[in-house]
């Protein structure tokens, strides 16, 4: 047994698989725990043998990005190890997702709750974008809720880094209902604005409690969008008729959002309309969205511990995972946020001490091994 195998075996011993929670197309999810502490985790076993060109792409993406991103609103990848021919990802265990909460008719949402969820989603997404990463599959189903109410973005199987000049990217990403019009038109060069559209759809869904733009096919999706927001003109979105898969879908008049969102405040509608702008370059950026008046207006966003949770905490039959039961916490509602360490350190230009940075190439370990 060589050193690598020995290290792997050691890692494997740290985690215990308890029971199967769900099965997806390329992975089986188990609930497990850390052997030493008993902390609940989710173990995602990726089926390797099935694919003839080796490991599935999304598994590589998930490991690649989650290894680098550590943020309170992004799911944490605790460990990776292999067993026989399988790859195992150890993720934090989260009990529910936003889709379950939206669909649970017994829960009542306050405007402050929606604000809190939106703020947490945007914070997680801002961190992705700040590190030049597109998530490319934002939907309520992928926004998991921890037991203390914190929302965490999960499923980085479609994520990739962006801003490479001249690199084509695939347009077959993002679940259809949350897919922006530029991807539906087959655009191969896009930006962080694609995630913003999805956030807009989620925002609307939180208010409506039903998917905002549920298209039945890719064609129908465009029609659904235009029916809701009006067909874009060349002025609204310069150059969109030149996009590879452009097809005229018919003329629909623009109806004011107020007609559908009758109870929403002016700030809310303003933010929503800026998420759902056709021209991607004019769509609001995550950082601007976080500084939008909507978030500062009363009511303040709900404290995470007070957010509605589904009453019955059943295990979800899906491939994505679930929240971390805080063993240390005294229970929901008591544990407050970690003290706000707030913002980036804008001082200390001397930079003598190490700054915490998201993507660091750690040469020290490399040097040690060599």
């Amino acid at each position, binding site marked *: 047994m060589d050193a690598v195998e020995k290290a792997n075996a050691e890692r494997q011993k740290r985690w215990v698989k308890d029971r199967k929670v769900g099965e997806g197309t390329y992975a089986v999810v188990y609930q497990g725990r850390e052997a030493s502490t008993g902390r609940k985790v989710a173990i995602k076993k990726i089926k390797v043998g099935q694919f003839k060109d080796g490991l599935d792409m999304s598994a590589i993406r998930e490991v690649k990005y989650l290894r680098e991103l550590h*943020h*309170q609103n992004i799911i944490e990848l605790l460990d990776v190890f292999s067993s026989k021919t399988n790859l195992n990802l150890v993720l934090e265990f989260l009990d529910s997702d936003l889709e379950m909460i939206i669909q649970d*008719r*017994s*829960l*009542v949402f*306050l405007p*402050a709750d929606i*604000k809190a969820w939106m703020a947490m989603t945007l*914070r997680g997404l*801002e961190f992705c974008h*700040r590190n*030049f990463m597109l998530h490319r599959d934002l939907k309520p189903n992928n926004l998991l809720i921890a037991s203390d109410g914190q929302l965490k973005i999960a499923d980085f199987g479609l994520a990739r880094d962006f*801003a*490479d*000049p*001249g690199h084509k990217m695939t347009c077959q990403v993002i679940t259809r209902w949350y897919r922006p019009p530029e991807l539906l038109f087959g*655009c*191969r*060069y*896009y*930006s962080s604005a694609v995630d913003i559209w999805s956030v807009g759809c989620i925002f609307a869904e939180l208010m409506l409690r039903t998917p905002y733009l549920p298209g039945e096919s890719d064609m129908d999706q465009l029609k659904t969008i235009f029916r809701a927001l009006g067909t874009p003109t060349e002025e609204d979105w*310069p*150059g969109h008729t*030149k*996009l590879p898969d452009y097809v005229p879908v018919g003329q629909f008049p623009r109806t004011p959002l107020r007609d559908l969102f009758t109870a929403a405040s002016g700030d809310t509608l303003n933010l929503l309309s800026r998420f759902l702008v056709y*021209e*991607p*370059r004019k*769509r609001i950026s995550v*950082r601007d969205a*976080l*500084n939008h008046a909507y*978030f*500062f207006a009363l*009511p*303040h*966003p*709900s*404290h995470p511990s*007070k957010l509605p949770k589904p*009453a019955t905490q059943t295990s979800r039959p899906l491939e994505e995972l679930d929240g971390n039961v805080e063993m240390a916490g005294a229970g929901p509602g008591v544990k407050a*946020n970690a003290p706000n*360490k*707030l*913002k*980036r*350190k*804008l001082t200390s*230009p001397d*930079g003598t001490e190490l*700054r*915490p*940075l*998201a*993507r*660091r*190439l750690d*040469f020290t370990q490399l*040097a040690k091994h060599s």
Partner: protein
Amino acid sequence: MSNRTNVGGWLKGKTVRKGGITSSNGHTARSSTPQVQSTSSTVFSGGVKDASGRTTEYFSMDDQCPVCKSDRYLNPKLRLLVSSCYHKMCESCIDRLFTLGPAPCPICQKVLRKLAFTPQTFEDLTVEKEVAVRRRIAKEFNKRREDFPDLHTYNDYLEEVEDITFNLINDIDVPQTEARIAAHRTENAVLIELNLQREEQYAHALREQEELERQEKEQRALELRREVEIEREERETSQREIIDRLETSTKDAAKVIAKSRAEAMKRSSARTTTSTVLRSSAQLLRARAAQSTVIPDPPHIPLQDNWDSYEDLYTLKDQYDDMYSDAVRKDREGIMRAGGYRVEEAWDRALRCAVAGLDLPPLPGLNPSPERTDVAMASV
């Protein structure tokens, strides 16, 4: 007097179908106006209208015109109408007597006009008269309790109204009574108009409320149907499950059935709890509101992490001499622009990656160049 039992039906606006032909004894029946075949060219309107604005016409097999003695046996299309002096006569008599202008009533000699005849609603003509009189009086004397300083004066007013009504119905001192009505009308013209408007508003609100209630009821019925449907489906699947299990498992049949039953029970009880929760959503909202005072909601803070994005170490310029993004910047068709791609992001990324390395300790075993920082800064 069997039609009397139908009075309630009339008040509720129900149309009692014409039964003249079906009732074999040939006693009484009613029909709404359009079903009565009129032999006259004149359209007789008026009469007692119900809530929906229709007139239900009284109609009996024993009808006989008091003037020409013609009856339903001789003339199956016989239609009796009521004069303003509350005497009945048939349409052909009315046509014969009044077509040439006003003429005296053949029974009481009061001068009548053809258009003053109205369809009959009640069998008893005194009731017909009373209803008509009360309607008329209610329009004029529409003061309310609020319009009086105390109960006593209001009671006096009601007494007076009842007095006038009684006089009109029984034809006592008619000219005097009419004079009283006219006096009241001139005295209280403004108030009467105001109360009329109020009544209209009230009726309108009532209609709206009824409509809302109806919609709510429909919604509830729909939900109930859906629930029943779900329950039925569940029952079916559970039955299918039992059969499946009995087929495949080797366990005792009774045990398998008992287990499946228990599961089905659990499911159905779970459903009832969710539906009760649904009903008390208002309470839930109140509970949430109460809770919000216990743990305060902190104001919004845009970013809560302490990761550094090195924005203090560089400033992004508008233009760079960059051969890699040439194609993008030229972008003949504007495709990249339309898709939202921005080359500034590429530059931003390149710069940030460059400055992020400045803090790293040098690799052990390598010779770091002393002017490392200066070089990097200069390139920015």
